[in-house]
């Protein structure tokens, strides 16, 4: 199994989610994160104080998929998350050695 981690623009979450479910992926975990990168941030001013904010709100999607589905998943995310503008985000694939479903104790592919 692999863990596919995607960092995307928040408003793209719904599209990406449905694209993944269409692939038959029945679960995923989402986290609100802040991203730093090429995409420029903004400046905030509070009375005398000015702050340059370089971290932007992003959504991190983590989905563990069977070996076979990795490429399809990555492709689906790229397709749906892309706006073509700086800040669209990244996808990272890393290995998962073992998985367990807490409720049933099922393991590995049958757990996800």
């Amino acid at each position: 199994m692999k863990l596919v981690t995607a960092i995307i623009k928040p408003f793209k979450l719904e599209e990406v989610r449905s694209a993944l479910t269409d692939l038959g992926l029945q679960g995923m975990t989402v986290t609100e994160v802040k991203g730093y990168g090429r995409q420029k941030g903004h400046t905030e001013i509070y009375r005398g104080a000015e702050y340059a904010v370089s971290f932007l709100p992003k959504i991190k999607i983590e989905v563990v998929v069977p070996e076979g589905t990795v490429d399809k998943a990555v492709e689906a995310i790229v397709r749906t998350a892309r706006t073509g503008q700086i800040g669209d985000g990244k996808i990272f694939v890393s290995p998962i050695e073992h998985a367990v479903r807490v409720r049933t104790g099922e393991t590995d592919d049958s757990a996800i």
Partner: protein
Amino acid sequence: MSLGTSRRIVRLAVTAFLFCLAAASAFAQAPAPPTPNKGDVAWMLTASVLVLLMTVPGLALFYGGLVRTKNMLSMLMQVFFVVCLVCIIWVLYGYSLAFSEGGSLNAYVGGLSKAFLAGVTPESTAETFTDGVVIPEYVYICFQMTFACITPALIVGAMAERMKFSALVLFIPLWVTFVYFPIAHMVWYWAGPAATVGAAKTLAAATGDAKTAAQAAMDAVTANAGLAFGWGALDFAGGTVVHINSGIAGLMGALLVGRRVGYGKEAMPPHSLTMTLIGAALLWVGWFGFNAGSALEAGGTAALAMINTFVATAAAALAWMCAEKVAKGKPSLLGGASGAVAGLVAVTPAAGFAGPMGAILLGIVAGFVCMFFCSAIKNMLGYDDALDVFGVHCIGGIVGALGTGILAAPILGGTGVFDYTTGKVGDYDMLAQFITQAKAVCLTLIWSGVGSFILFSFVKLVVGLRPGTDQEREGLDLVDHGERAYNY
């Protein structure tokens, strides 16, 4: 005991003395100009403060809680800014345009004789609805100022989350000048009780040729009123002037600015119903100043307006919740709060005319109608009136304006209409009154609808109404104001 009062008593004592020497009525002699009763002053000062409370923070929070976090500040800012701007415009020329004699245009708008509050001093007084009862003019100006502030502030909810601040800055002064002040004048301006009663007395006393002259004078007095007031339309605290007016303007704005990016596709839940509830509660609290204050006196009518403002609101909130329970399975807090506002809107024109039971009925109807409109009909029509300004204020206002025509009837526990010429409540013709109400509603819908459409179009042309899509996605807080509402 006010100095005025003591002065009277002194005068009176001397008078009594004169009595004894030559029993002549001292009261036939010209009476001193009336001085304010401090009880009325106390209440009207309080009422003015309450209406401000109802706008900021009240309305600001009610609206702010309903938008997404990224647009919270823009919502608060727009309401707050409108209040500040209109305060200034009001004392510069607004009060004058609304409440001074307008010469040839008097049916539609006032003049500039009171621009910059010319001639107003702490001693000047304004008449209430009772002959001989007055309040300091500054109090009257403050009280009416708060009405002029909240009305345009209500509009911004319709274009929430997508209207540029700069567009608002241009729109507001135009709108109050060409829409609010005229409508306020048309509905509320009149010659006042003293003149009316005086003319009526003279007419009654007059005989022979004097009669025609007196009749002419009487007619002049009656003619010296805004268009709708002349028709005899009833609007106790501003159902037409404030709510129908802002509601239809909001609809025009929503149509011209267009739907929010992602509307119907992305979820746009209120970011804080807690703030919305605080806002709704403060609206209720402040509305007592709005409605009971509109009696301009601390007396029985204010008390009636107060109890009606309690029960109509409660009834409408319960009605909306019930409707939700039936239609969607669960009564919601937002439903309750929306219902309360709908009830407040509906009871506004009726507050001093209907009886408590009538007010309950009015509230129930308003709750159901607005609930139905904001869910079913609005979705059907598919326009994006973000915070339901039209659905609650315009629709609710119409329910109230028409309902007033019915519920003011004494047979329904209403107060009927006081006739200054006869000095008592006249016979009540429900149908006639209902038609008059309908006319006033149409007048407002047309004047404000057309006027607002023109003004929004003009602003769209000049500075444009909305930001770019990316900016809208980033949120107006950062784009327009360079701030974020929360940094937890």
